[in-house]
């Protein structure tokens, strides 16, 4: 580290946001959390619908917190933070979705359990 030029980049303050930003982020997050909560315990949706809605709400809250709490993509933060973050998201998606695809595929080709076999045979007319 060459200390002849201290290489001061900026004020720390430029990295903070205003209190306002945090309040908005906080409020939105609470809203999204409560929405997810209410929809879940009301049991008005099921199956794929509830999964989709919950994931959707979670992703929005992710964005909210990334922008309001992490200040991602803002001027104060280096562009590299964003690039590495996006790269990580891409790999994580591949890992999770890929694993789910592979494992579901594999599991569906496993031999059925005794219970499943009996159920199947009964459905075909046996009386077990």
């Amino acid at each position, binding site marked *: 580290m060459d200390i002849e030029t201290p290489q001061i980049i900026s004020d720390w303050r430029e990295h*903070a946001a205003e209190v306002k930003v945090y309040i908005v982020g906080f409020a939105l997050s609470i809203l999204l959390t409560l929405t997810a909560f209410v929809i879940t315990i009301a049991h008005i949706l099921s199956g794929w619908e509830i999964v989709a809605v919950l994931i959707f709400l979670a992703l929005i809250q992710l964005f909210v917190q990334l922008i309001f709490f992490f200040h991602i993509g803002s001027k104060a933060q280096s562009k590299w933070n964003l690039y590495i973050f996006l790269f*990580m998201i891409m790999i994580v998606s591949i890992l999770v979705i890929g694993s789910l695809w592979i494992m579901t595929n594999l599991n569906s080709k496993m031999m059925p359990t005794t219970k499943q076999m009996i159920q199947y045979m009964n459905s075909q007319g046996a009386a077990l």
Partner: protein
Amino acid sequence: MEDIDTQIQEAPKYDKTDDTIVFGFWIYLMTDCVLFAALFAVYAVLHNNTFGGPSGSQIFSPHYVLIETLALLSSSFTCGIGLISAYNMQKNRVIGWFSVTFLLGVSFVIMEIVEFAHLINVGNSFKRSAFLSSYFTLVGTHGLHVTVGLIGMLILMIRIYTKGLTKSSVRRLTLLSLFWHFLDIIWIFIFTIVYMMGIA
């Protein structure tokens, strides 16, 4: 050369060392994301393997989880406010806001421990089934991270109390805040994927 550990009087300056360290920490957080992603993948694959034991809907208490979630979310907020105070050189406010953050965080951890203890007591421990193994590990790893963060927070508060806001303390508060916000984001997904989807 500026002594990095004396109380700074004017607005703290952010230099290349700080930039490098904060960036390095950011990358570490990215690796931690992958770690949690792997745990999520395991949970996703194994969550239906209840092996005759209880499933999520049978053991999760929605209201309890909501309180936990709001506690952690609030602590993320107070942490952010505390950091702003640090950048504005307001030592007492920093300690104040981070004390609140600490208390909220501790409440979160205690609630989680109580939940775990209860499950283990009634025979639904991590040994019961693959579902419970992955539940305990995913949520437990997050709780461990929170605990480490709380210990760090305590140590940092003590340092700031005794030595005031120094250049290194401001940087460490930044790192701590990044860590704390990151943990809340992971919790969003635990809340959604483990608890809400389990209950639905």
